[in-house]
């Protein structure tokens, strides 16, 4: 896995990434299967979101503090904030309109 932008955050980043990946790989395929009904999906999502917090919440807090400081130190804080203000992207954008290679 790639390094953090600050070497001092890299150990925490690697620990957090490993935690997320382990959780995600167990999450994804059952999540697709659980989408057959809304009730099933909500129950599964609820349980797995809590599990993620329980498993990775602690290392995330440490990593987040470290990377927030690194973003500030690199002078990226204002640029990141500007990008968030311009396009918050709190919801998934519509898919790109290239459904296959166009013939034009």
């Amino acid at each position, binding site marked *: 896995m790639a390094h953090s932008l600050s070497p001092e955050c890299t150990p925490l980043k690697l620990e957090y990434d490993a935690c997320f990946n382990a959780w995600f790989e167990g999450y994804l395929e059952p*999540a697709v299967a659980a989408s057959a009904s809304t009730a099933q999906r909500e129950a599964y999502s609820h349980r797995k979101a809590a599990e993620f917090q329980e498993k990775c919440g602690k290392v995330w807090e440490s990593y987040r503090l470290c990377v*927030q400081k690194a973003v500030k130190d690199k002078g990226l804080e204002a640029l990141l904030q500007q990008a968030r203000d311009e396009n918050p992207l709190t919801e998934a954008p519509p898919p*790109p309109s290239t459904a296959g290679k166009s013939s034009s």
Partner: protein
Amino acid sequence: MHFFSQAFDYEHPWSHVVIGMWHKYPNPKCSHVISIDVVDRSVDPKTGIIRTERVLGCKQKTPTWIVKLFGGSEDAFVREISFVDPATQNATITSVNLSLSQFATCYERIQYSPLSTSRTQFSQTAEIQARMTLWRTASDGLEKWLVQRFEQNAHLGKLGFTDVLRTLWEERQMQRAHS
């Protein structure tokens, strides 16, 4: 304004591609990406959609005139937001440059969606636009350079991710066979 788009298929199931997404870097074919950090992530307890905001650090040779004129440097940073929706089996990734963003924006969208149980479609579009009324030759030059760089990286990204997916899932298949 410059546009770029491409689409192709990966010979892997959607879930494998989306798991592989988090293993794409570091990648010898995409050595320009040198750091990746998650700055925000949420798992929606109702919909199961995972939203991730990351900051990618890239190092790439910049033409001297761009450095001189726009005060850029070799380090460039990108903000990337991804959504993984298991219900619709869609993964979308949106990225925009943070560096040089006062002069030009490169807005990229990627989508992975299943074509069949064993194939995944990748589609990518990018809009590259100089932001201010720059002196025209300079803004054209900047856009053109960004487009060239984007096309080069898009090509390497495809090669690199193809390798990652093959290695990742071949290794795991071997492990399963031996266990």
